[in-house]
């Protein structure tokens, strides 16, 4: 399947529509929000027999995004998904210019460059509580390994990545305070590499962290994370006992080093695919929540850990489930601000 596929099936009713998506920086196969969003689009479209297509802009400027949105619109794709905060200003313009189109903006809200949110009637703005996902991953890590050291590798210093980082730190700290673990994170082991694609640097940084005594690294860094995972795989193949925590999607498969065994302890998942899927379904059912800002978080199962966690013990899993409930109920509040945390 080469990204674009045409399932012009039969029996579409009046609410038949075409689903388009514009990718952000990076490719459609980024194992992160582009891919996640697209998977949601594909799943929903195939279930509903909708035509769906994605476009890759020439660059990452607002003009580039607007051009592709216009292209989709002119080609009758009037339900448009855009993943990434970089689309914020483009959607601000698009929602006004293309009033009969619907927009789903993932990881951001439309504004006019002044960060005053203006979510149009034809737009849904979706956020994820990355900090909560990070928090759960932190809990799982600390509880499963009980004691040791953790590190964090981020890609670029952008809000979703930062929130993963901060949440993870809070999770580890919470486990230390309340669950009797003894896990530490040193400031030098929390870094933003600066890109999402420098695989070599990812491996080198991970190696350095492991050599410095880190046992588990949480990487929210795209290709940089791939490098880190490769490093972990190689170390484990050589008998070391190190772990990685995946991000965005369940990265278990990326960490396989032998048979079914993986270096991925768990992953901090945000259900991007789910959000895109939900929005398309809602549109189909005439329930598109236009004008709303949706938060995908613990309360609506928009974030979490993967369903399957072969590397986590039963007790860890139940502990995490417990915490999950506490977040849901509001008993635990995870902050999405730095507030005294590292970086």
């Amino acid at each position, binding site marked *: 399947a080469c990204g674009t596929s045409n399932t012009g099936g039969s029996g579409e009713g009046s609410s038949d529509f075409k689903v388009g998506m514009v990718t952000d920086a990076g490719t459609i196969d980024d194992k992160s929000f582009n891919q996640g969003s697209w998977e949601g689009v594909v799943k929903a479209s195939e279930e509903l027999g909708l035509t769906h297509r994605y476009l*890759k802009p020439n660059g990452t400027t607002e003009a580039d995004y607007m051009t592709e949105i216009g292209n989709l619109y002119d080609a009758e794709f009037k339900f448009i998904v855009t993943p990434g905060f970089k689309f914020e200003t483009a959607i601000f313009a698009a929602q006004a210019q293309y009033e009969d189109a619907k927009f789903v903006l993932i990881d951001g809200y439309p504004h006019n*460059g002044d960060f005053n949110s203006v979510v149009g009637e034809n737009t849904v703005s979706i956020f994820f509580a990355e900090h909560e996902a990070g928090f759960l991953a932190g809990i799982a890590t600390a509880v499963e390994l009980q004691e040791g050291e953790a590190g964090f590798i981020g890609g670029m210093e952008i809000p979703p990545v930062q929130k993963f980082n901060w949440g993870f730190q809070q999770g580890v700290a919470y486990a230390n305070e309340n669950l009797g673990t003894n896990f530490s994170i040193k400031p030098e082991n929390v870094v933003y590499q600066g890109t999402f694609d420098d695989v070599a640097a990812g491996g080198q940084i991970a190696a350095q962290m492991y050599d410095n005594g880190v046992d588990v690294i949480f990487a929210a860094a795209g290709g940089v994370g791939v490098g880190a995972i490769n490093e972990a795989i190689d170390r484990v193949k050589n008998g070391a006992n190190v772990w990685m925590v995946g991000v965005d999607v369940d990265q278990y498969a990326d960490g396989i080093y032998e048979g079914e065994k993986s270096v991925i302890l768990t992953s901090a998942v945000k259900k991007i695919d789910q959000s895109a899927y939900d929005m398309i379904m809602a549109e189909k059912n005439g329930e598109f929540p236009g004008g709303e800002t949706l938060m995908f978080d613990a309360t609506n199962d928009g974030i979490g850990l993967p369903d399957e966690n072969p590397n986590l013990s039963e007790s860890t899993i139940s502990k995490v489930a417990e915490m999950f409930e506490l977040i849901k109920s509001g008993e635990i509040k995870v902050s999405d601000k730095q507030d005294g945390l590292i970086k």
Partner: protein
Amino acid sequence: MRNVIVSLIAVLFGLIAGAILMAFTGNSPIAGYQYLFEGGLKSISRIGNTLATATPLIFTGLSVAFAFRTGLFNIGAAGQMLFGGFCALAVGLTFDDLAKPVLLSLMIVVGFLGGALWAFFPGLLKAKFNVHEVVSTIMMNWIAYWTIYYAVPGYFKGEFLETESRKISDNASLRVPFLTEAFDGSYINLGLFLAVIAVIVVAFIINKTTLGYELKAVGYNRDGAEYAGIKVNKGIILAMAISGGLAGLGGVAFYAGNTTSMQIGVMPTQGFDGIAVALLGANSAFGVLLAAIFFGLLYSGRGFMNAMTDIPPEIADSIIAIIIYFAATSILIERLVTKVLKKRKEKKTIVDEKEGQ
């Protein structure tokens, strides 16, 4: 004339190769090209966007072509564009209470100087130490990339974002309401006028002035120029600086016209596309203008082609790459053209015995 034919044939070959690729992936080339051109041209705002896309390419193409005409291969337009754009943006963000015409003029000057500075070093190294500019400009590209990477968040950090500069005010933007409205909300901006002026100025310098005469002489034959009393080192440095300055203007047009802020971690692709544009434009200023618009058309039209068909998006890139290869191997095309022309001549005249030399 010969050059035009060669370029057109290169384009044609590229398009044919693209057609084959489209057919190979089970798509109709005719529909593909139809949507490609519709995407770039079918409405006034699309035309505006095509021109806006072409604008930075005109500058980088001019930059590479100018260097070429003076015997230099400037592969560093990306870095020069980045640095020139950064300098202009810095001015735009710092002095945004100046009157718009004053501020814009200042930004243009500073952008030019920034790009010129970035090319000055490779020029200096070439002139004084005979360091090949291909290697030094590549190094300068990365130095620019990392300098910007840290300078933008360090000095011009956006309010909420670490990876982008603040936005420039309308005062510092090349976008003007009359253009935006005339082109129905497109991104076309004053950069295009600047680019056209640059084309005219560069054509004038190269063809009509003693400066152009001097720089071309240095480019064609360094020793010959030196023998004739032309200051060769000065020529090389100056040619390089002008080339860099043009790329710097491309940065101004891009970062203050097409965008309104600067993202870090991005090497502008216009730098490398400039090489292609210059080649296709046969290194003449007006050729560059046309080639850049053609590339702008490809880039702005391909999204529509993708939206309307199942043609994979990489095909547009492939077409461009193949065009470049044919432009690079233009000798083959030239021979072909010569052969055809000759044959035609032979048919017409009944042996006008070749008059020697």
